[in-house]
């Protein structure tokens, strides 16, 4: 029950946090003039008509960065508990953590060698 009381605060915060900034938007929606026309609503493109689909194909580069990020993000799942308990653990814990980080750094080194980190 204690934990729920704690998280009730966070829960209400999660509900309220988007509402607070939404208030000025709604207020502006009430106050501000509404005179839409086709030119105004057209997609902004430095004055020229938009050519083709918005879905131009993007570079693979972005996906690869996302990929490396995902792997490191998941690594955090293990490193945070490790760091948390580190104070009360013995030297073996350091070695375990070291091996864990070392194995993952391998992946980074590989990506580096294969020039994935090169922005082209």
């Amino acid at each position, binding site marked *: 029950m204690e934990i729920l009381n704690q998280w009730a605060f966070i829960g209400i915060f999660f509900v309220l946090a988007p509402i607070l900034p939404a208030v000025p938007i709604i207020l502006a929606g009430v106050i501000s003039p509404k005179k839409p026309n086709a030119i105004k609503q057209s997609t902004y493109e430095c004055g020229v008509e938009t050519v083709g689909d918005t879905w131009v194909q993007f570079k*693979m580069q972005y996906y690869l960065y996302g*990929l490396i990020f995902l792997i490191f993000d998941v690594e955090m799942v293990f490193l*945070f508990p*490790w760091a948390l308990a580190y104070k009360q653990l013995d030297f073996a814990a350091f070695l375990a953590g070291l091996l864990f980080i070392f*194995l993952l750094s391998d992946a980074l080194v590989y*990506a580096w060698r294969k020039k994935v980190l090169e922005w082209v």
Partner: protein
Amino acid sequence: MNFGEGLTPEAIAFGLFTLLTLGGAFGVVTTRNLVRGAIWLIVSLFGIAGFFVLLSAPFLASVQVLVYIGAIGILFSFAVMLTRGMTNLKERFNSQWWLAALAAVIAFMLLMVGVIIPVFGNTGAPVSDQVQTTVDLGVALVSGNQYVLPFEVASLLLTAAMIGAIVIAREDD
């Protein structure tokens, strides 16, 4: 806190998270627009994070938000944007969709019969209110007699996945 007969805040939160999780899941499997699908997926997984909080596993809830919403959701969005023509799928389902629906219903039935009926109606509280904390998780992860091997293997798996994905996805060669 107790606002009425049986309607505890926990029950309200549970209902809300159920709505998020199942509603989001429903959106994922039915939407024609896969960017929206990714958003529905995020909604659904956020609901799961809520369940984790209710089940006194705040660490996993936080990690759920970090990994699924912060990383996997973004990766899905990237993938959808990298491959064109996913915003207006003409045919959502394949020709055997009704078979799939049948299989899903049967799976649900089997799960109900096999797993849930034995504990159905058992309103018993958890065995203990003493819950292990994240510190204990950290200790367990590096203790020689517990999870130190899976801990390292997880790292190896992540490395392998990353290298594999890079090899597959790289444009040249």
